[in-house]
């Protein structure tokens, strides 16, 4: 029963959502909206659950003085501080909460994102080493594309931007579409296996 019930719920809901996709009637739309509302409600409660585990994990680290426990103090301190500020000042535009968000959180995220430039440089160095025929082709395509995107490429040879565009819209697009078709079929197959209960490792079943 412990396994049959989730499988039965999964089957009923899965089939209902597939059928709903083909029915534009108001009843069907209402059903879909209700499901979305439920999803939002579950998400809100799961946030509380998630925050609870966050506090639990970091509290355990602090009390056991595990490696890097000082960072856990900052995590819990930051969480409590932002909660307090949010409750006291509100979260509207211009409040202290929003100022902290705009001038601390957003720049911190931007900093992480901007690190990507350095990572791309190191990854590109590894990817573009011409050690095999395939890697050499990749290197040539990458150089043409990079030149095709800057005025200097046009200055070198006026046809380079056109060649770069051709690489993007033909071989590149063909490969992308091949992957997309496979992904689409894989998605339907996975969904079908879950709905039919063939794939049940998510509830601990199977070998």
């Amino acid at each position: 029963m412990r396994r049959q019930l989730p499988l039965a719920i999964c089957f009923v809901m899965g089939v209902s959502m597939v059928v709903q996709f083909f029915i534009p009637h108001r009843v069907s739309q209402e059903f879909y909206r209700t499901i979305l509302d439920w999803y939002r409600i579950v998400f809100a409660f799961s946030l509380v659950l998630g925050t609870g585990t966050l506090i639990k994990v970091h509290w355990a680290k602090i009390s056991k003085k595990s490696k890097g426990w000082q960072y856990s103090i900052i995590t819990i301190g930051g969480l409590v501080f932002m909660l307090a500020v949010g409750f006291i000042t509100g979260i509207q535009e211009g409040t202290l909460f929003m100022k902290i968000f705009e001038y601390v959180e957003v720049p911190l995220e931007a900093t992480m994102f901007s690190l990507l430039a350095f990572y791309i440089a190191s990854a590109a160095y590894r990817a573009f080493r011409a050690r095999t025929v395939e890697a050499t082709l990749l290197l040539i395509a990458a150089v043409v594309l990079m030149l095709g995107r800057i005025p200097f490429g046009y200055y070198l040879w006026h046809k380079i931007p056109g060649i770069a565009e051709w690489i993007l819209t033909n071989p590149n697009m063909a490969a992308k579409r091949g992957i997309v078709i496979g992904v689409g079929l894989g998605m339907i197959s996975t969904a079908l296996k879950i709905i039919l209960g063939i794939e049940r490792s998510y509830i601990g079943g199977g070998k």
Partner: protein
Amino acid sequence: MTTIVLLTLLYLQISPPKDVRVFDTPNDAGGSITITWESSPDAEGYRILRMALPDSVYTPVDWVDAATKRYVDKVEDGVKYRYIIRTERGSAYADSEPTDEVWSHGNVFHRGRTNVLIGVAVYTTLLLSFIYFAKRGKKLFVRKIAGLDAVDEAIGRATEMGKPVLYIPGLSTISDVATLASLNILGRIARKAAVHGTRVIVPNRNPIVMPVCQEIVREACLDVGRPDVYREDDIFYITFSQFGYTAAVDGIMLREKPAANFFLGMFWAESLILAETGASTGAIQIAGTDAIHQLPFFITACDYTLIGEELYAASAYLSREPLSLGSLKGQDWTKLIIGGLIVAGVILVSFGSDWFLGLFSS
């Protein structure tokens, strides 16, 4: 004087819109009627007039410019209506003939999705057929996927080194099929890790995915008879912030130094930051995603990468269950059919036949 008046009247005479048609808007939830017409050369704009039966008075609903030839009116289901489209130019106007009675209702089938329904039906039939053959014991060949063959090696290495395995189930929600595929793989990996008594750390960005991950790992440990291996604190929520999560996972990789990193699921711009940091710690890295734009980053920075559909095939491949393998064969045959359709489409369109394309439009 009479001549001037007649000439003025002739000048002011304008033609009404022609061929006015009304019908219940197709493929909708109801509550709307669509009106179409052929434009009048004299129009500055059109006024839509509506009469709800049994009333006998037309009331203006809206005004649209001269370029408009189609109007969707929001109405009450089941009530009968008649419409008049009025051509307006300055103070002059000309009314069309009143339309037939029309009423709206919700549609029970979206006809624009008939081709999708047929496609899904064909695909489902193929999948179920191969699953049936697999169930009857037919041997099915599945090509080798290096990234999945390396899973045992990665977990074995972590066990030997006494270090944990880090599993990232992507950054998307539970409703994303890539996340579901990743959770299926997590079940397989957690099972193998539990057999060896190896820790599996699963940091989560989505609070709904987190309890599902906890349950999967717990069930996997129970299934192999190692409930002692399960540590709830190893599967935790970090933050919903994309780069906040990335920073935290980078920190975990640098502090805990996992021997194997799995990045399986949906990823965005953080993919390379995670994979490069993992590579710098010397861990075996296996990635898999259906996000096309992140694949090059994973291919560059990870030891093995599951490309697109391989992510969805992984659970079946790892379990070797005949039923799951049957579905893989169904996928392959469907790809063959799609390939055939693409070739047929290219040939037909090249020879100027467009009806084939129409089969695939909504």
